[in-house]
C-alpha cells in the first residue's frame, strides 16, 4: 500500500485517492479551430512516460481536493506533491507569457 501525502490531510492510504490522469495538459486555446484529429489527440492521447511522470490525483474520501503529484512510474517513488496550477517542480517555472499561451491551468 502506498502512502500519499495529501496537501490538506497528510499521509493517507492510496485507496483514499482517485487518479486524474496526466497533469499539465492545457485546454486548447481555440478549441473550435481544431481538426477532429487534433481534438481527439487533446481528449485521448497522453504520454506514456517511463520515469518521472506528473499526474493529477483527488483525495476522494478525504478533503475531496485535487493536487498534482510527480511519481516515478518504474519505482513508484513519489518525488513531489504540489498544487493544481503549479509548475512541475523538476522543471523551471513557465513565464507568465508561456502560461497564458498554454491556456487553462492544469
Amino acid at each position, binding site marked *: 500500500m502506498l502512502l500519499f501525502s495529501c496537501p*490538506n*490531510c*497528510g499521509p*493517507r*492510504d492510496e485507496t483514499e485517492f482517485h487518479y486524474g490522469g496526466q497533469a499539465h495538459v492545457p485546454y486548447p486555446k481555440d478549441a473550435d479551430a481544431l481538426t477532429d484529429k487534433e481534438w481527439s489527440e487533446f481528449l485521448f492521447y497522453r504520454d506514456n512516460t517511463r520515469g518521472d511522470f506528473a499526474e493529477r490525483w483527488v483525495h476522494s*474520501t*478525504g*478533503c*475531496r481536493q485535487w493536487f498534482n503529484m510527480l511519481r516515478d512510474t518504474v519505482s513508484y517513488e513519489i518525488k513531489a506533491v504540489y498544487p493544481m496550477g503549479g509548475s512541475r517542480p523538476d522543471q523551471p517555472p513557465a513565464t507568465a507569457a508561456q502560461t497564458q499561451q498554454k491556456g487553462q491551468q492544469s
Partner: protein
Amino acid sequence: MAQTAERENDVIRGLRRSPAGHLADAFSQGSVSGEQGVTLREVPFLTMIGVRAAPGSAVWDRLGAVMGGLPERYGQVTGSGAGDGPGTEQGVSVLWLGPQEFLVIAADGPNALGGGAAGASLLGGLLDALAGDPGQVVDLSANRTTFELAGPSARAVLEKSCALDLHPREFTVGTAVNTQIGLIPAVLWKVDEAAFRIFPRASFADFLGRWLLDGMREYAAVEVP
C-alpha cells in the same frame, strides 16, 4: 395553518426509519461491558447541513456568526457543541471536511430544519446568512447516519480496519476527519477519550454496522489466561 404543518411534521417524524434501525437489537446484544468493553449504537436522525464557503469571505464570517465560527484547519471542530461528550445532543458542531467544505451537526427536531417559524431554525438562519452569495447551505440530514462506538476497546475495534493513527497522542479528543473504515468512506469524530462518532452514508450503514459488530465480538469472549 402553521399548526397543521407542525402536526404533519410530527406524523412524518413518526414514520421515519433510520438506516441502521433494523440493527438496534443486534447492536445492544453485541455491546460488551466491563474492562475491555465496547458498545455500539445508532444515534438516528441527527440534523446535518452541508456548508461551503471560502475562508476570509463575507459569507464565511456571516455563516460563522450563526454557529460560533467555522473550522479553519484539518481535523478541527467548532461550534457550541464542539465538546459534546457521548450521548449528548446539545448545541451545534461544525466539522472540517475540506478547506471550503464543512458539515454542521445538530440535534433532530424542528429547531434545526424548520417547521416552526420561518427563519427561526438553524437551516433558515444559515440560508439567511448565505443570502444568495457564492457558497452553499444544503440539508443533508438523510445523507448519513450516526454510529456511536464507545468503551475501553473502541479504539482497538476501529484500528482493525481504519489506517489512520488513532493513538491519543496523534488523534486527540475533538478531532474529526473524513477517512475510510473497512473501505467504507466515513467521517470519524473522536468525541471523548473512549468514544467515537462515525458518520457513514445511509446506504453503507448496514454493512458498516455489521462490520463493527464483527470486530467487537472478540471482546465479549472470556480472556484466555
